[in-house]
């Protein structure tokens, strides 16, 4: 029949070959990593806070994706789909930060002519020039 597109081995058939213990282990690991990030997150590690938090979150997410969501033993195309989606998220971040990090400072929200308002009404006319 359809040899070229039939899944001769349905991956989901193999999923119960391992017991439930695998899920308990992953759950325990997730809790450990959660504890780690809670402790390290509120500590003052300077500029290392963000990368560390993201690293731990990525590991946790990886465990959920690979084992709870079975991407580890799923068809390759599913992995490709998820991977490409993540790649495009990075592209979005890269393109925008490429702009923000190299823009002339006065064109940024934190530039000299910007000022924040807390509360009050939405501005209905352009911000006045502080030099006038």
């Amino acid at each position, binding site marked *: *029949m*359809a*040899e*070229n*597109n039939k899944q001769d081995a349905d991956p989901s058939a193999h999923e119960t070959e391992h017991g439930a213990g695998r899920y308990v282990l992953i759950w325990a690991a997730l809790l450990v990593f959660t504890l780690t990030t809670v402790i390290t997150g509120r500590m003052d590690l300077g500029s290392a806070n963000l990368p560390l938090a993201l690293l731990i979150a990525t590991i946790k997410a990886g465990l959920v994706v690979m084992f709870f969501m079975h991407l580890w033993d799923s068809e390759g*195309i599913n992995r490709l789909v998820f991977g*490409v*989606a993540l790649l*495009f998220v990075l*592209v*979005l971040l890269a*393109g*925008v930060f*490429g*702009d*923000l*990090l*190299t*823009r*002339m400072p006065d*064109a*940024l*929200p*934190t530039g000299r002519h*910007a*000022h*924040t*308002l807390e509360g009050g009404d*939405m*501005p*209905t006319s352009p*911000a006045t020039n502080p030099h006038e």
Partner: protein
Amino acid sequence: MSQPADSAALTPPEAPAYQKINYLNADRGVMSWLKTLDHKRIGIMYFVSVLATFLLGGIFAMIVRLELTTPEPTIIGANAYNRMFTLHGMVMVFLFMIPAIPGVFGNFFIPLMVGAKDVAFPRLNLLSLYVYWTGAVIVLFGVITGGADSGWTFYAPYSTTTPMTLFPVLLGVFILGFSSILTGLNFIVTVHTLRAPGITWMKMPLFVWGIYATSIIQVLATPVIGLTTLLVGIEKVGGFGLFDPGRGGDPVLMQHLFWFYSHPAVYIMVLPAMSVMSEIVAAFARKNIFGYKMIAYSSLGIAFVGFFAWGHHMFVSGQSSFDGGAFAVISMLVGVFTAIKVFNWVGTMYRGAIYVSAPFLYLCGFLFFTVFGGMTGIALATLSPDVHWHDTYFVVAHFHFIMVGAVIMAFLAAIHYWFPKMFGKKYHEGWGMVGAAFIVLGFNATFIPQFLLGNAGMPRRYYMYPERFTPLNVASTAGSSLLAIGFIIILVYLIYALIHGEVAGPNPWHSKGYEWRTSSPPIKENFEEILEYPEPPHTYQQPGEEVEHVII
């Protein structure tokens, strides 16, 4: 008419000339259409819908062009003008261009081209149609109750502070996005799981490759415009200030989010058009497609690289010149993939047995407009000249060359090529060529003056202009009337053909595309029997063979 010796292989054994019981009449009654799971019927319903929205978008266009006939106010006021060009853009982009070729021809022909009985998720397919109707109705409601005046790009802060409601139109666009996602998702899964034995990836019709690449964009890019419309709507209603500099926000961020979808969106519009052309060029030059693999891969290339280039819409927005430069260079890369396709199409035509007909005329128009539209795109992507051209009619002409010149040519070509298959009747070829002539000539008359206007400095979206721009504007409006006449001519003879047209038979073009290997119109189940696929589609010559000439 003489037939080539192997035409028996093209015609299913006992198929009658006109398939009496076919998908159109297999089940009767309105409810059988509204609850259908047949991809062909869903394609027909999309067809009727997009024709209606095209008409609406065209009316807005005619109003804009009529207004621009004189430098002073002509038929409408300034605020009305803002709404006209905004609605022209929104209706054309979201209600016509994005759904048209995938929704109509993708739905109808993908299963036929991969030897399947339906798409992977027929119920989701019907849902995508319902969601499309819902989004379209909400947009139309917004149009009637005051519409939108922000331009189809609804940049903050104007869109978030304008007194115009805008909300229904944004909501409609948000909902339409889901239809696009469902369609794309369906096609990707169909191509992966429902190809008949014998149809490997490298033997898939190029139309399928193009729609597959389009579907990748639809699935991954559309959520971002969904979020953008949501954020603009929330900011408008709730005063959240995400894009408001007065609250520490960055309005350019909105443009980043908007164009991250909207640039790939233009490839959602143009990739299906290009893939239609890959089918047409092989069928009407009766020659194996030149460079099958490169055309297939270039579709994927456009789909991917199209995601990296969005900043070229933002060169003068306040984006950094470093980022702008990076986007400029990446945008050039997309031109490489398009050029690959153009050279391969021309290579297919070279020494082919050309059959001059309406689809072929549209192909010629398409090639001309793609080359000029594409090259002006590269010119615009070159950052420094774009500082002069940005927000002028040069940009307007460029994207209309692609959106109308390429995509509409392809849409019309697809209608004419596949009309016999979809409806079992032939249209009158003489009138077909008359219609094509009006369209191609009318298009040139409408949009070439706009390049000149833009280069001379006429801004876009402007209601009035300096006296010296009048002659070119008048020329452009006159051209648009030719376009309108062309569309009316086409509509008339196609409707006539539906009712009184000559019976087409299974394969009037003697095309060796896979979709022709069933009756016209197709039966509900698509195929009478399971077919074998020993050769790639459009195999007109074996290696070493000369091109054979067939009188159609």
